[in-house]
């Protein structure tokens, strides 16, 4: 009886532990997102960056933040169980890049030549 009790409690404890870890993880994600967002806005609003750098900076910050979101909120990681999801995501990104960059390349060329 007692042993069972203990077991239950231990399991609960480990669950608490786990919950705390997970919360911490979410918080880190939130803070990172806020920082990255603020950085994006700052890069435009403060005028500290040279004009030519702003766009690349924005792209890098946005991509970083997307990775943070994928990792923290969507739980994508490199572990085995997630491999299928990760592969699907990467495959989608591959196709989407072909289509999106292809479009930009083609349309830029066309508008330059017309």
């Amino acid at each position: 009886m007692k042993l069972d009790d203990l077991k239950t409690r231990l399991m609960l404890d480990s669950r608490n532990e786990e919950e705390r870890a997970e919360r911490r993880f979410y918080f880190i994600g939130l803070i990172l997102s806020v920082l990255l967002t603020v950085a994006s806005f700052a890069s435009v609003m403060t005028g500290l960056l040279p004009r030519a750098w702003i766009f690349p900076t924005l792209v890098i910050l946005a991509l970083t933040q997307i990775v943070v979101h994928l990792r923290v909120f969507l739980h994508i990681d490199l572990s085995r169980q997630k491999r299928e999801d990760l592969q699907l995501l990467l495959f989608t990104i591959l196709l989407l890049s072909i289509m999106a960059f292809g479009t930009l390349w083609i349309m830029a060329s066309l508008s330059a030549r017309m």
Partner: protein
Amino acid sequence: MRQSEHTWFALFAFTVLAAAIYTPASAATHSADFMRPLGPIADMQRTELFWATVIVMVAILPVFVGVPWILWRYRRSNDKSEYAPAWHFDTKLELVMWGVPAAIVVAFGIWLTQAVFRIDPYRTIDAEMAEGMNFEIDGPPVVVDVVGLDWKWLFIYPDEGVASVGEMVIPVGRPVSMRLTTDTVMQSFMAQGLAGQIYAMPGMVTRLNVLAEREGTTVAENTQYNGTGFASQRAPARAVTDAEFSAWIDTARAAPPLDDETYAQLAKSGDVAAARRDLGRTGSGPLAFALPDPMLFGRIVGRYRTGAPVPPEQQPGSHSYDPEAARLPATDKGMSDGND
């Protein structure tokens, strides 16, 4: 397997039949086309077709020969042939299967890349190109501005101060540099004997550079469906001697002018004959015009680039087009500050 014998016979009969019917294009047309080019660009395109066919045949012919042979040889009723039901892999065969098509595609790719760069329709025909492709240039370039209307082509010669509908005339030996647009929906300008086709779109300018090496006629047609008169949007494109060309320019200069009102009428949907009627001209055949405003082409392009809406009444291809209401912008300014 009686059934299968019948099948064989029928297939054989079909092959003979198909071969008999499908004799190569030996048409009795008089005009130049893809198969009978007028100039070096189209000539190169035909050469491409020939060589592409030849190298691709290396991979294709084995199918034509192999399939009937295999089907016959390994038919079920022939129990003298080998039978290898479990055979399913062979490294050497794999190498051939992947390797041969891959090699062909590499060759094909190199080939097409060279061609695409060499005869890029935007590339002006100059001495360098003439040398590389082994043809001769004989005289200064001619500029032709092509405007696609519903259902006719308007050819503007800004430097000569003339315009023509229903006929394109170019001098032999001189590079022709075309700028193309439309004043209606999207079209595609094709002159097979000269260089194939390029799209023409409202508010935009595409280019095509050609040269005719010999006298002759080809068809300048639209290949992009644009409504009920589509089939009639075909005009002869004549390559003539320099002297004939000058003579043609002179007669055109004497023709009535293509001023804004005339253009507004001309742009209405209808074929060449309808335009002739609308403009109150008599006779038949192509229409020639003197060109008061050498900027006309730019202003047509600029119609769609002013930043103001162009309602259907002001768009020549539209059903509600009203020649009285539609005015071209005064300058071709819009053409350069592109918003495309």
